[in-house]
């Protein structure tokens, strides 16, 4: 991507880079390898020493060469390779086992090459930071607003006067609101450093109400050195204001975290709310059904490696079917002989859970497997600079609610829902009323298992997928179902969300371990007040 740099600003940027470069050169010369020209720098890029590479990056950045930005971006993205044969820099994109090569400088196609013929130019953390700064400088004037935005973000709070000047220039032309925000903020931060009181005050004024951490840090810095009482006063006020807004946002964030944790609990528990809550099967293999769902996601992704973004849409029905069929299998071969003996279902399903775990260990592997997040599940929705909701959590929260309502409809509005409740309450009588209890049991257990599988898809996006993963959820799931009131779907929802939020409210001051303990103690005490959970079955039939 060639970058057009208007001349007058080009000068500024060049001088900025020259300055950076001077710094670099002195460092590098200390290490004895003088680097000067763009071309020479290119060769140095493939040097194994990070120090030499760093110096080369500085030179390339400062060269003013129009190809520099693209080159550095490729380097940062890990696409820049060196061809062993002629030490030429090439851009690499994978194609069916081999690599497709393009010339790093002019973009011309160079055909295919095997993996052995090229070698990636490794970068380290420090270089990554360096590249980001350099690229920012080179792209602040990019025509692409997204690129400019990234550049502006990167430059935020940089006290370098040259950078400030570049920002000031860009701001004159900038039309994008977000970019302007960042640029203005940078300038305001610069204002704080100004010797003139009114400029500092202007800076404070502009920063007041900004949620960017840089704003608060700038004020803090100012306050640590400032002597002018008027400025101090203004800065104090601005800081208090910012802190208050930030803590509001933090509260919102905590609530979101709680709901999100709660939604995970709900998802994990909801299948159990059916198999255990409605059917009365103490299903210790519930966790393993979740695991099966997660492994299904893994296998689906293995089968469609180039379509990861769509994989979940395949995985959700697939996991539902696979786990559901497994549930039906378990029901038909074992559980159906145990109705009326609920405690023995605990025994048998515990055995089944051991078998399923070991089955995964022997057929797939004892190690965790990697499930990828589709790009739309990655990153976060930035509400404001102090509040971002991660997409994965957000979608899973929504997903949990969808699953919940779907189940609610099935149980309350369909014949199956009515029949399963009747069977659970009085099997013989239900059969006498023509309810095919065997079919109802199989379908219902399959439904509960399938929902567990679907939960597994969601969980695979958040946590590890391995043979033990089911064990991590079984205790919590039972807790949620029971806390909510056995047999009450709403109870499961409310209980899950409540426990999630309670946990997250306590975590900041109690720590993760103690918070969990406190939640457990809270449940134990709460049950004393409501011995049948949040939403108990009431009436004559229930007591006794």
């Amino acid at each position: 991507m060639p970058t057009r740099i208007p001349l007058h600003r080009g000068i500024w940027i060049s001088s900025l880079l020259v300055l950076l470069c001077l710094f670099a050169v002195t460092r590098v010369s200390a290490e004895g390898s003088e680097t000067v020209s763009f071309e020479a720098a290119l060769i140095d890029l493939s040097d194994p020493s990070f120090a030499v590479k760093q110096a080369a990056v500085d030179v390339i950045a400062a060269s003013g060469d129009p190809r520099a930005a693209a080159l550095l971006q490729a380097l940062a993205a890990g696409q820049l390779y060196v061809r062993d044969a002629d030490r030429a820099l090439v851009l690499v994109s994978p194609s069916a086992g081999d690599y497709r090569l393009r010339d790093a400088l002019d973009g011309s196609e160079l055909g295919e090459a095997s993996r052995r013929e090229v070698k990636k130019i490794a970068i380290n953390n420090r270089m990554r930071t360096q590249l980001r700064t350099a690229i920012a400088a080179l792209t602040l004037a990019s025509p692409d607003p997204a690129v400019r935005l990234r550049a502006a973000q990167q430059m935020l709070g940089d006290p370098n006067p040259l950078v400030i000047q570049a920002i000031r220039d860009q701001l004159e032309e900038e039309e994008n609101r977000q970019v302007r925000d960042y640029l203005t903020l940078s300038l305001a931060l610069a204002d704080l450093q100004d010797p003139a009181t009114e400029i500092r005050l202007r800076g404070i004024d502009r920063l007041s109400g900004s949620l960017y951490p840089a704003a608060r840090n700038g004020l803090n810095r100012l306050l640590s050195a400032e002597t002018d009482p008027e400025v101090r006063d203004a800065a104090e006020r601005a800081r208090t204001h910012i802190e208050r807004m930030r803590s509001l946002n933090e509260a919102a964030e905590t609530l979101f975290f709680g709901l999100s944790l709660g939604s995970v609990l709900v998802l994990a528990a909801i299948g159990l709310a059916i198999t255990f809550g409605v059917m009365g099967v103490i299903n210790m293999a519930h966790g393993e059904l979740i695991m099966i769902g997660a492994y299904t996601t893994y296998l689906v992704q293995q089968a469609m490696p180039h379509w990861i973004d769509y994989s979940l849409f395949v995985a959700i029905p697939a996991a539902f079917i696979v786990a559901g069929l497994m549930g039906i299998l378990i029901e038909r071969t074992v559980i159906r002989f145990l109705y009326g003996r609920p405690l023995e279902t605990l025994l048998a399903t515990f055995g089944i859970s051991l078998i399923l775990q070991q089955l995964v260990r022997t057929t797939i592997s004892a190690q965790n497997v990697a499930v990828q997040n589709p790009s739309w599940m990655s990153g976060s929705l930035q509400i404001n600079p102090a509040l971002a909701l991660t997409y994965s959590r957000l979608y899973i929260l929504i997903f949990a609610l969808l699953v919940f309502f779907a189940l609610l409809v099935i149980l309350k509005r369909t014949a199956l829902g009515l029949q399963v409740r009747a069977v659970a309450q009085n099997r013989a009588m239900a059969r006498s009323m023509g309810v095919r209890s065997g079919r109802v049991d199989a379908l219902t257990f399959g439904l509960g298992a399938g929902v567990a599988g679907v939960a597994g898809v969601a969980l695979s996006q958040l946590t590890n997928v391995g043979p033990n993963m089911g064990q991590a959820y079984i205790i919590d799931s039972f807790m949620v179902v029971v806390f909510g009131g056995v047999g009450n779907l709403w109870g499961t929802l409310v209980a899950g969300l409540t426990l999630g939020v309670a946990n997250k409210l306590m975590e900041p001051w109690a720590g993760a371990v103690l918070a969990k303990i406190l939640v457990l103690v809270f449940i134990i005490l709460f049950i004393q007040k409501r011995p049948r959970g949040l939403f108990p079955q009431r009436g004559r039939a229930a007591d006794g």
Partner: protein
Amino acid sequence: MLQISGLNQFYGESHTLWDLDIEITPGECTCVMGRNGVGKTTLMQCIMGLLPLRSGSLLYRGQDLAKLSAERRASLGIGYVPQGRQIFPLLSVEENLRIGLGARPDRSKQIPGYLFELFPVLKDMLQRRGGDLSGGQQQQLAIGRALVIDPKLLILDEPTEGIQPNIVHEIGDIIRRLMTDLDLTVILVEQKLPFARRVADRFVILDRGRLMATGAIPELTDALVKQHLSV
């Protein structure tokens, strides 16, 4: 309608029903009588398919029931009002009634309206949980529930138990009316002689699991009663 022959039933090791041969004639009400614990309920449960037989056959309209599950028998039109009501306690009254709809031959999705004429109390209590009803209300619900599947053969195990006198009376009338209106055959287990005499056409007397006597109701003499029904 239903021909029971050579029926034997065991609870574990204990032989409860012995070589029963009973014929239920269509369109009639047969009353099964006997002291406590002689096996009346056991017989009903065998007919319904809730208990396994040791031996014997149950021929229902020419079809052997012995191999069929209870749910199949229900959809063949055998309705069951069990002793002790067996209401689904946590389902609402309406749901208790709806549950039988699936077994109706006409696949109707509506609870037949005549039920509420028979048992108005149910109409007022549609949304109440079955388990909360009073004993007598539950009994009415149990009868109503069995009617929902549109039965051809209705098994009533002590249906008047715990029901207020005027409704007992009515139930008697209802049974007779249903028999004519709906072409029902009825098997009734009943201890109350006056009621049995009023409602039934035939009687069957059991003692300790064995068939003792059978015949038309007028043949139910005091001697028979004294011999088999008193303690």
